[in-house]
């Protein structure tokens, strides 16, 4: 990928800025990443980071409740926010004419969000509906992102449910909100990113105008979430009231995504060799040749790669018929991982994976919203937004030996196995 034209700098209040001009379409993307995600929630407040994300849309000093949505949409734009293990992002994509407005909206809520008891109560209700929709009222809800971490991890930050328990959500107070905002939503703990149709000079001027007087607050210390690798195979079981078929998730710890990026990328290539497309090894064997499973996936991260610091997880998931015992699938998986050492991927097998990664990264770059968010999250996590453009080459540089080494590290005696059983079997 061609190196993007990036400008990076930091305001006096500590706010980091990434500018990525590109005039091919008359649209702009604006995002703000805060360096806090659901791993930073305290015990007794599961789901708080996500609930707080909702509250950030509920008004600020210059904007009544609902005004944020109305200003973005009446400018022709779209918006959203999302909460990840290690960060929370907010973003808008709009016609280029609305750039200053979008920056104003983000700056106003970074400076002075209106946190009220009424909005908190309303958004607790909305979040509970979101959880009913995405978890409680559907088959395989929270599989594996909510269900696997408590099997794999021992410490609260890594193991708990990031969507939150209803009892915890209901306990959230205005006092919690104020403390959370003052601690984590400091400008020095955030990155603002602008991508698309604008000039750097104009964007710099507008960012200074709107974010420049957000008062500085200390950057909170970032705790380590490190914990030892599992000392054996950990097993967990979940009864799913809606699922018609059993499912299986296997979680392995993987190399530090930040400090051992090349090791991490080798795992991404391994994920492709095992699971991407009909020609991938596990697809061929488990879905078609034997066949043991209906559908199968392999890859990095609870929601995808490049969105968490250490520790991160490599997962293999499968849905299968009740006649197949999970241990048969695990046995076949372990055999295939061992076979990788005896018959390492050849040049073509690696090229299959790296070409698909290259195309996927181009495609992501073509969608303004994902391009904007990628620059922002790479600034936040890697301190290097330009890294995005070099990923395809670095993935292409992963060797057969690297993939073999990555496969060897996926050890049966250091992993988590989650078994999902249909509660109403036979129905």
């Amino acid at each position, binding site marked *: 990928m061609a190196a993007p034209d990036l400008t990076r700098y930091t305001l006096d209040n500590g706010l980091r800025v990434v500018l990525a001009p590109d005039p091919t*379409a008359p649209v702009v993307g604006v995002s703000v990443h805060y360096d806090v995600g659901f791993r930073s929630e305290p015990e007794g*407040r599961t789901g708080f980071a996500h609930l707080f994300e909702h509250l950030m849309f509920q008004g600020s000093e210059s904007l009544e409740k*609902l005004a944020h949505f109305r200003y973005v949409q009446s*400018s022709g734009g*779209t918006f959203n926010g999302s909460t990840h293990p290690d960060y929370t992002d907010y973003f808008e994509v709009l016609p280029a004419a609305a750039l200053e407005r979008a920056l104003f909206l983000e700056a106003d809520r970074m400076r002075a969000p209106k*946190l009220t008891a009424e909005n908190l109560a*309303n958004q607790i209700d909305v979040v509970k509906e979101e959880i009913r929709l995405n978890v409680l*009222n559907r*088959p395989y809800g929270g599989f594996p992102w909510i269900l696997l971490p408590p099997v794999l991890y021992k410490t609260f930050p890594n193991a708990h449910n990031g969507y939150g328990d209803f009892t915890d959500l209901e306990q959230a107070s205005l006092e919690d909100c104020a403390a959370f905002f003052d601690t984590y939503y400091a400008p020095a703990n955030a990155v603002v990113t602008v991508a698309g149709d604008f000039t750097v000079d104009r964007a710099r001027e507008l960012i200074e105008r709107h974010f420049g007087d957000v008062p500085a607050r200390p950057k909170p210390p970032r705790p380590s979430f490190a914990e030892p690798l599992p000392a054996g195979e950990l097993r967990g079981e979940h009864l799913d009231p809606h699922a018609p078929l059993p499912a299986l998730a296997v979680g392995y710890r993987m190399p530090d995504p930040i400090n051992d990026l090349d090791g991490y990328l080798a795992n991404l290539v391994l994920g492709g060799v095992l699971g991407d*497309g009909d020609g991938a090894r596990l697809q061929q064997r488990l879905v078609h040749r034997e066949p043991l499973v209906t559908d199968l996936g392999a890859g990095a991260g609870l929601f995808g790669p490049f969105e968490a610091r250490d520790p991160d997880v490599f997962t293999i998931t499968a849905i299968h018929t009740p006649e197949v015992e999970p241990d048969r699938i695990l046995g076949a998986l372990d055999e295939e991982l061992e076979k990788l050492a005896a018959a390492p991927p050849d040049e073509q097998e690696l090229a299959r994976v790296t070409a698909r990664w290259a195309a996927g990264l181009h495609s992501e770059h073509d969608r303004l919203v994902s391009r904007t968010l990628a620059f922002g999250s790479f600034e936040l996590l890697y301190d290097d937004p330009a890294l995005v453009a070099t990923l395809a080459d670095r993935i292409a540089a992963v060797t057969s030996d690297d993939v073999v080494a990555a496969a060897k590290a996926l050890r049966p005696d250091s992993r988590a196995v989650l078994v999902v059983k249909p509660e109403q079997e036979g129905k």
Partner: protein
Amino acid sequence: MSVTSSTHRTAEEIGRTARGPRPVPELGEQRAAADLSHVDTVLANGLRVLAVRKATVPLVEVRLWIPFAGDDELHPATAEVLAETLLTGTAKRDRVAIDTELALIGGEIGVGVDPERLSISGNALASGLPTLLDVFADTLTGASYVDTEVARESERLVERLAVARTQPRTIAREALQKHRYGSHPATREVPHAEDIVKVTPEGVRALHTASVLPRGATMVIVGDIDPDKVIGDLERVLGGWAGDGSAKVLAPLPELAGGDVLFVPRPGAVQSQIRLSAQTVPRTDPRYAALQVTNFVFGGYFSSRLVENIREDKGYTYGAHSGFEFTGSSAVVNVDADTASDVTAAALLETRYEFGRLGLVPPTESEVESARQYAIGSLVTSTASQTGLAGQLTALASTGLGFDWVAAHPERLAAVTVDDVAQAALDFFAPGRFTGVVVGDAELLGPKLTALGGVTVGEPS
């Protein structure tokens, strides 16, 4: 909370500054999107091709839509098996070879089918376009549907259908289709497992011969390409794809009449699905632009009356949405919300109230302006990427529209008046025009819904 700093401001202190509230900046000047070179033509075999050069990244998107209706009892099951096995082999390539050739050009092809059409979508690095088109041509003309692949994919389909049928949205959609359209072929969106096991490889091959036809189908190609050259390439590569007659178009849907909402019990559900629907007009109708703006004001975007009422004011739902569904040359508006059982009846009441209010207290100048800007802006942002533009054009092409419609639509939206919107609200959103279903737990919902009225309890016929 323990991990936060020991001293912090109160919520009230956080929400105000010495300087006080600030004015929201005005919008700047908007530049028009660049003109894209494009070709819209029909190949000798009857396939319409819409090719657009959009060279933002070195990729190409190829979308093929083939009208694929069928009246046969087994058609939905056979079509589904065909979609799952189309890419499992030809005389030249087996399943793994197809995937490998595509992977080496960074590509993939996906196949889907519904009562109206077979859709084959591919993408790849632009340098791989010849290979991508060769795989398209090879499968369109030579898919072999070998017995073992048909057997295995049928098995997987039965398993996947079991999963699909436990999804609340699938259950609600099926109930809505039956309640709206009875036994029309359009209702048969998810085939039944007992039909899948009856599908034979011969049946799939026969369906391919009879229905995978170029005449009446549309291919959209968007990306880092030369449109004129692509057309020439396609004539050559797809020249062997022919067949008797035209692709099979779905019989027109009957006009939707308003009526009672059908309440479909789903024991133990912790959330209910509200699905309402009314007849509207398609994109080719002169009233469409006004209707589109009206729909945004009602529930088509976040800043709409419905979302502000039942989500942001009352917290009944995570998402309420109102949007169009286009089938052939007809269109309906669908209004959806998923709500907790104890507030479902109240959410239905509020939705009906908003239907009535839209006609009786019509959208204001500022509501219309906001929706208009959103309609224009979201068209610009959604067509800024190759995938977005390809998706938009593919949807348009099924009603004979094309690139020019996208280019001219902002002007049509700009011309919509407040009076046009008030008229569309009365004509299309009157409460009596809607029918629909609610799916949820009968014990919790039954008494309240019955008391509300305009609700019949039962299974769709």
